[in-house]
């Protein structure tokens, strides 16, 4: 009997299409795995009936010889940032606990239309603010990975898409949606040894996605290999008139276009990413990645992205500023939590509701955002950060005159233990040092597994491409995947 947990998106889609097995069999098998993996806390809500319903529809379509969609028969996890009609959507916050959308996000609707089914809503950092999945109101997500020291230290699955990364690495689902504002797809993918791509800003509609920082938020797929990411991104992407920043462009056939022959391609290696005191394992993995891309025919060139060190501080002005504005909508009036102390007026109700409903990190970022946008500080902080952001984008523009793609590590270290970085917000923020520049510039960027650390934990390689060149990014990712020989997986302790 087929172990459906071992099949990826392409294998399930093809097997269902060929009649090797029924979509319902896959959905049932994965529903069982999800239900048995409570120890990971990857799901906030499980929706086995949705997975079965979608699978039955695909099986019926096949029986009737109707054309099948790009994701037909593939059960997936849905990050709890995507509004799903009739299914609680919380962004892992208390303030949205019990919120049941009366509409469906464009990205999730696209996936259901393509024949995917929903296993459940995935846990995440609250409002996507975090890099370790420790800010969720619904508890930490645990990585299925453990260090090879024999200890049982619970490790972070990365964040903010930590439920997605944990569930995929634990083979509860072949793929899941993620969102990436400053690394929230790539860093968790790197931490658990899977792949994930953030497309060019505007490829995936933001409509129906709980907003964090609108000029940065982008949805993307996470899966166990590059081909599966390509398939799922095709299903997710596309023009949406309901999102004013949606790109009115056709969706390329990324899967059909996959080509790991990189002859004629130039890969830039940014010297500023080689930080002083860079982790030895990370440096070694990066060198291996360079060798693999050379082997695939690419030419390696040294490049400079001079404003790299300013990306993170600029991000921590821009993202909180946008968040403070976006999260103003949670007022205890129209939806979500209301905390109305005895005798309180409207203003007191707002303040009490928001104090009770937002977690500590969310409150901190709203306050930073409010401060940097306040009278007298706006130009010094926000305008200056947006100028620096323009310079960071210009750095990439200049680099493209020398190279086609950029190779760098995804994160500065392997996964850390839960609780190791929670006492100091800054040390947590530094996790995204390599991921944030591409976010600020709106560029497509992907993480693929690059090897294991000495502790036996996955490390990720990041490929950054020109705007709209997801194909180039996926191709280089595939070239690495074919050469890295990465087959390690987490032992099943849960």
């Amino acid at each position, binding site marked *: 009997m087929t172990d459906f947990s071992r099949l990826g998106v392409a294998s399930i889609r093809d097997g269902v299409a060929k009649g090797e097995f029924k979509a319902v069999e896959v959905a049932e098998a994965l529903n069982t795995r999800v239900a048995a993996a409570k120890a990971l806390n990857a799901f906030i809500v499980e929706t086995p009936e949705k997975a079965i319903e979608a699978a039955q529809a695909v099986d019926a379509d096949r029986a009737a010889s109707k054309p099948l969609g790009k994701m037909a028969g593939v059960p997936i996890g849905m990050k709890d940032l995507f509004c799903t009609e009739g299914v609680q959507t919380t962004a892992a916050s208390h303030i949205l606990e*019990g919120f*049941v*959308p*009366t*509409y469906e996000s464009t990205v999730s609707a696209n996936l259901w239309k393509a024949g995917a089914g929903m296993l459940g809503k995935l846990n995440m950092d609250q409002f996507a603010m975090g890099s370790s999945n420790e800010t969720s109101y619904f508890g930490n997500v645990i990585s299925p990975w453990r260090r090879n020291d024999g200890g049982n230290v619970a490790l972070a699955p990365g964040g903010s898409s930590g439920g997605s990364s944990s569930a995929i690495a634990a083979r509860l689902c072949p793929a899941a949606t993620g969102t990436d504002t400053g690394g929230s797809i790539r860093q968790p993918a790197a931490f658990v040894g899977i792949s994930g791509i953030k497309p*060019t*800003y505007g490829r995936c509609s933001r409509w129906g996605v709980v907003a964090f920082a609108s000029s940065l938020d982008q949805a993307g797929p996470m899966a166990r290999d590059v081909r599966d990411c390509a398939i799922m991104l095709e299903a997710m992407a596309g023009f949406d*008139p309901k999102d*004013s*920043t949606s*790109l*009115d462009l056709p969706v390329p056939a990324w899967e059909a276009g996959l080509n790991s022959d990189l002859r004629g391609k130039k890969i830039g290696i940014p010297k500023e990413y080689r930080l002083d005191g860079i982790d030895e394992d990370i440096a070694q993995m990066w060198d291996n990645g360079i060798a693999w891309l050379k082997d695939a025919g690419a030419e390696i060139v040294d490049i400079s992205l*001079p404003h790299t*060190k*300013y990306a993170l*501080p*600029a991000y*921590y*002005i821009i993202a909180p500023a946008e968040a*403070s504005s976006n999260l*103003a909508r949670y007022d205890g009036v*129209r*939806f*979500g939590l*209301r905390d*109305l102390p005895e005798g309180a*007026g*409207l*203003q*007191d*109700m*707002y*303040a009490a509701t*928001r*104090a009770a409903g*937002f977690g500590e990190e969310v*409150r901190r970022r709203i*306050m*930073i955002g*409010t*401060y940097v946008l*306040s009278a*007298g500080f706006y*130009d*010094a*902080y926000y*305008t*200056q*950060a*947006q*100028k*620096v952001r*323009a*310079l960071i*984008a210009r750095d990439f523009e200049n680099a493209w005159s020398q190279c086609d793609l950029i190779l760098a590590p995804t994160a500065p270290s392997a996964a850390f233990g839960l609780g190791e970085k929670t006492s100091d*917000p*800054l040390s947590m923020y530094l996790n995204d040092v390599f991921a944030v520049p591409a976010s600020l*510039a*709106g560029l497509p960027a992907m993480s693929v597994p690059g090897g294991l650390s000495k502790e036996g934990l996955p490390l990720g390689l990041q490929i950054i491409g020109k*705007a709209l060149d997801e194909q180039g990014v996926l191709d280089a990712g595939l070239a690495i995947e074919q050469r890295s020989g990465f087959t390690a997986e987490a032992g099943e302790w849960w």
Partner: protein
Amino acid sequence: MTETAFPLKRGGADASGTLMSVDKDTVNKIARLSRIAINDAEADKMVGELNGILAWVEQLGEVDCTGVEPMTAVIPNKLRLRDDVVTDGDVRDKVLANAPAKEGSFFGVPKVIE
């Protein structure tokens, strides 16, 4: 990249042009502007955290941004206009479905005017 003073000569800066650190009164003011109730202990804790983060982001002041326009759109895209016609609506019950308090077809709020 040339070292330039943080370009701040008005509110929020002291006479030398450097940003003042945030004190507890300021934290309370930000909390009020943010519509987030905080108690004394939280305000004390926030003073240190905000100052740490603000001191770190102030390195942006080193960057010479002369002649640089602040970014407004990350990917060139033109804002679309649509025909000025009704395309949506008549969904009152859906809009009210998640209201924490409603009265008839209205959102319920505490008394605003005495």
